[in-house]
């Protein structure tokens, strides 16, 4: 543990991270799995790692999940 957790979190990289292109390519699949209560993180750890680290992709994930849940009422 160090005294600068926010900086440490920001700089820490995850080798499983698939990058934006792959995460966005599979975003609809990942979101449907999350919306259905499935363990998306276990099934797609590389996408989960990316969505945690990438602000824009994380925001798109949250937006798509909200749209799906909203449509489900």
């Amino acid at each position, binding site marked *: *543990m*160090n*005294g*600068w*957790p*926010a*900086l*440490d*979190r*920001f*700089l*820490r*990289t*995850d*080798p*499983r*991270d*698939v*990058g*934006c*292109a*792959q995460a*966005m*390519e*599979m*975003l*609809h*699949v990942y*979101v*449907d799995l999350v*919306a259905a209560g499935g363990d998306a993180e276990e*099934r*797609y750890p*590389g*996408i989960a*790692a990316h969505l*945690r*680290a*990438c*602000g*824009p*992709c994380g*925001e*798109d994930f949250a*937006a*798509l999940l*909200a*749209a*799906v849940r*909203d*449509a489900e009422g």
Partner: protein
Amino acid sequence: MIPVNSVVDEIPARLDPESAEWIRVLAVGPQREAALDRLHGMLLRIAQREARRRGPRMLIAGPELEDLAYQAAADALMAITGKLGQFRGESRFTTWAYRFVILEVSAKLGRHFWRRPDVPLGAEDWDRLPGRFGFEPARESEWRDLLAALRRAVDTELTARQREVFVAIVVNDVPLDALALRHGSSRNAVYKMMFDARRKLRAALAANGYLDDDDSGRS
């Protein structure tokens, strides 16, 4: 980062009934126009909600924001109809379709960023980093050293391009999508550059005792 082909596993061969119905009515026939109208309405609602949520941060509001939402919905609908044959049933059709409009809103807001009057060009505002990373004023004597070490690492460890991207995104708060547009690049390429920069900077700070020297590599 891991190879591309390790992400996608099996693809369901059959569509769920609702998705199959969407594909059927959007393909050809008398119901197509009504289906397009319905889908456009759904896309527009999502675009408007997302634009209104993200707009204030990008200093865009009012009719301009509404126009952006309409454009995003229209462009998404065009992309969806053009790529209908590529829908493979890996998700529900609507989830696949909504992704297009979400990405359109992101891209259009990124383009809008450069029309803001306060866009930092050239200047480097390192004084905003303590706030960004939650450094407490009471510990300034400690984080002053850390910040100086970070700046040194940015100057000595990164390539010129990595430094430019790091400063724009982290120091000057330029959105990643906006930076990608500026460089004629992609979100993925800029992220990859930041990924490599983050790894190098963390290693440099750990080597100098500012961060834990572990290499678990997982957040």
